[in-house]
């Protein structure tokens, strides 16, 4: 389960669709600069790497974690699957410190898409102009219309299985695959929504509802928040990485990036990384950081040099700031009938009502919420940590497991400077300063959560649930910290993810998000990566790429 020696080397990489299989892979020399050296093989890095390689660039992707083979490495065992999360030392602080682990990290080729819950929602168009149109947060440097074709490209690549008619958002092309059958936990949401008169839909998911190449249709085994051992899940590991390898990209697993090197002209020349017991240096014409909202600012800050003493790309002082997360306060209820919420993907029904309705809110921002399907260990953990149940009391509560249903929102939080990722003085096993993640909710964030919990509780009761209780501690996706913008003084990168300070340094992951919206971010990250790849190719065609 824990292959802690690199697999992707010597001209071959693991074949994700077979046990023990290999697929050929290009081998680039360290001394020869590659066109793009990408740090991180998750939703941002793998997607960008694939699209750039397909566009003819030489690409090397560094990934700190292992290169999994789902069929042999992913056990149907919650405990064994904890190795998928990034659990290296970090410090957390603030009034509402964020628990780091399974909810918001992924270590391995494919990043956190290996264990994401596969929800593929688009941003509400107005969120791209949040400040001008909705009066809060920041405007993005792009519009929904700029991104729409790339949303479509990502949905097609991931073969999203979604409703024939999705009730929210502007008109769009039909999802490539049809929706999955909604499980009983999802039907609780459906019943409640119909009672309260709000819309609901089968959640668009990136697990296939019909065969797709070597991916069999989903068997609804319910282990989606861990590794999918059937390969029905369409993740960066199973979609973009195989394509990237075919197009000539190289992936180096178990390669921890420590520092981006800058030449005296202020250009990035490559990355120092630790692999197989030694520090190595890969030369590159362009460096892309795609480590997500903690590791991306951490690498930029750790790469401070005499020319950029505050860290790379940080002339604005914004690197690491304006961290947002999605608040996930839960509402839970007991039902007379058996729900068996572990059956199928965990979030099969969704309502985006409060993402698209602005009346009746005492807060700014939005939230979507979904039906839930926690597995027993995760559920026991929730009961123990939020209700303090232990021993006989925990056992009694766990006996209701098959009769529980509940909702958790993806609740937008405000981007605020004081919520940030900085460097602690402690160092990790590589000798790199570890990140310190500071987070507190704003008053608005708290009002949003209270609204969500009240509405979800009302819906659970309307669906026939009783003994309703709530918890306020959970968060999920981490976003922001290197936001994109139109102005070098108020943003870290431009609309193409290109650093304002260092013309051959790029960022391509969720840390680009100026605001976090009320939906899961993976689809938007992948759409952004497709767009950035497109933009880079156009810039190259016009000779506007930096030549190191």
């Amino acid at each position, binding site marked *: 389960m824990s292959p802690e020696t690199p697999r992707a080397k010597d001209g071959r990489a693991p074949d994700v669709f077979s046990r023990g299989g290999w697929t050929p892979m290009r081998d680039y020399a360290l001394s020869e600069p590659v066109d793009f050296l990408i740090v991180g093989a998750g939703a941002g890095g793998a997607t960008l790497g694939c699209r750039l390689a397909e566009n003819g660039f030489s690409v090397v992707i560094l990934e700190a974690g292992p290169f999994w083979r789902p069929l042999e490495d992913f056990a149907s065992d919650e405990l064994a699957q904890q190795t998928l999360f990034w659990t290296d030392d970090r410090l957390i602080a603030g009034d509402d410190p964020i628990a780091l682990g399974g909810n918001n990290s992924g270590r391995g080729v494919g990043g956190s898409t290996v264990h994401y819950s596969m929800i593929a929602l688009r941003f509400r168009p107005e969120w791209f102009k949040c400040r001008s149109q909705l009066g809060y947060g920041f405007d993005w440097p792009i519009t929904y219309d700029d991104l729409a074709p790339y949303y479509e490209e990502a949905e097609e690549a991931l*073969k999203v299985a979604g*409703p*024939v*008619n999705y009730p929210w958002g502007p008109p769009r092309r039909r999802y*490539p*695959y*049809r*929706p999955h*059958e*909604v499980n*009983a936990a999802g*039907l609780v949401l*459906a*019943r409640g929504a*119909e009672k309260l008169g709000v819309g*609901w839909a*089968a959640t668009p998911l990136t697990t296939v*509802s*019909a*065969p*797709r190449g070597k991916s*069999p*249709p989903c*068997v609804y085994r319910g282990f989606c928040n861990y590794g999918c051992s*059937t390969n*029905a899940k369409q993740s960066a590991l199973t979609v973009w990485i195989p394509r990237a390898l075919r197009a000539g990209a190289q992936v180096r697993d178990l390669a921890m990036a420590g520092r981006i090197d800058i030449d005296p002209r202020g250009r990035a020349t490559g990355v120092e990384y630790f692999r197989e017991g030694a520090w190595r240096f890969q030369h590159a014409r362009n460096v892309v950081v795609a480590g997500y909202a903690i590791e991306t600012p951490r690498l930029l800050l750790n790469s401070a040099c005499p020319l950029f003493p505050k860290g790379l790309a940080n002339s604005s002082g914004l690197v690491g700031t304006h961290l947002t997360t999605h608040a996930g306060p839960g509402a839970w209820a007991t039902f007379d*009938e058996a729900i068996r919420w572990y059956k199928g993907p965990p979030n099969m029904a969704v309502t985006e009502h409060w993402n698209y309705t602005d009346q009746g809110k005492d807060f700014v921002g939005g939230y979507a919420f979904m039906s839930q399907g926690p597995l027993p260990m995760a559920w026991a953990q929730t009961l123990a940590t939020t209700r303090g149940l232990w021993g006989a009391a925990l056992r009694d509560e766990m006996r209701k497991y098959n009769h529980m249903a509940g909702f958790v929102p993806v609740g937008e939080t405000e981007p605020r400077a004081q919520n940030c990722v900085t460097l602690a003085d402690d160092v990790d096993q590589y000798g790199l300063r570890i990140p310190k993640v500071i987070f507190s909710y704003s008053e608005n964030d708290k009002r949003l959560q209270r609204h969500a919990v009240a509405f979800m509780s009302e819906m659970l009761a309307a669906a026939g649930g009783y003994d309703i209780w709530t918890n306020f501690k959970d968060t999920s996706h981490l976003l922001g910290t290197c936001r994109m913008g139109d102005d070098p003084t108020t943003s870290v990168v431009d609309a193409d993810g290109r650093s304002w300070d260092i013309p051959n340094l790029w960022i391509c992951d969720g840390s680009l998000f100026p605001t976090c919206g009320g939906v899961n971010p993976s689809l938007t990250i992948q759409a952004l990566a497709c767009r950035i790849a497109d933009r880079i190719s156009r810039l190259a065609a016009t000779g506007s790429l930096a030549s190191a």
Partner: protein
Amino acid sequence: MRTKPLPALAGGVVLGAVVGVVMRAVTEAQPSEKPATRSYHADKPTGLSGAAALLAASVLADSALEHYRGSFENPAMVAPLISSALTLGSSAGRIFSLSRTRPSRQKAFVLSIAVGAAGLGFHIYNVFKRPGGLSWLNLFYGAPVGAPAALSISGWLGLAAERLAAQAAPAPRFFGLPAGRVLAAFTSLALIGDVAEVALFHFRGAFQNPFMYAPLALPPIAAGLLAKAAVAPIAKTHLLTRAWLWTTFLLGMAGTGFHAYGVSRAMGGWRNWSQNLIDGPPLPAPPSFSALSVAGLAALSLIEREAHAGDRQGR
């Protein structure tokens, strides 16, 4: 989820009625009687009986699989198994001239027609009772609306074969109309219904394999040609229509092969048959096209025979 008391009660009544009819038919069964006068068509309608038998076999296997999948939650879910088995047996009995009486066969066919109609009601109710009511999601995953109709159709085909056998005239009639034309029109409509059902489920499968378009491309043409044969001036040959019906017949058989390939693509493939046979594409469904093709061919034979009979009468 448990079946609510009212549908369960209704289901119980349906199942009870089916069992009652079967019991009565069994007790009344008489030794086979030779018909007093040998019917003109007595040896002819084996095609129709074959169509009824094949369709009933398709329904039997399909409903057994799907209703097993649904854990026979409602008692009525046993009814189509019984009635399709009886229709299969009765049609086979006619083909192989086994010792079943005509009245008992007729009862079996009427039973299939009735159970199919009741099933249609249950399946429509099942779609509407789900959250969202009449929606794509419920059409995909609720009880398949069109499936029970196939049971009724098998009953009608069996009954038609009996009627033909009973008529001494060289140009038999159904409901006062030329039998061949009635049968051609009926089969054409049945084909269209079948295509609609396949369109829904292949749409659910996102047409992930290009061959999934084949049953939407070929059978509608067969249906059109049959409809033309039903209303066009009477003809002695229908070469194109026959060829197209045979193609549709083969398509139905090939469909089972494609569905078997579909099962192999599910996690675990055929090694995991006990799960994948139930959740994969249904193996017994495609031969319904073959069955209807056979019925169409029988209809053409009747039309052509009528044309020849007209010639003999100097028409």
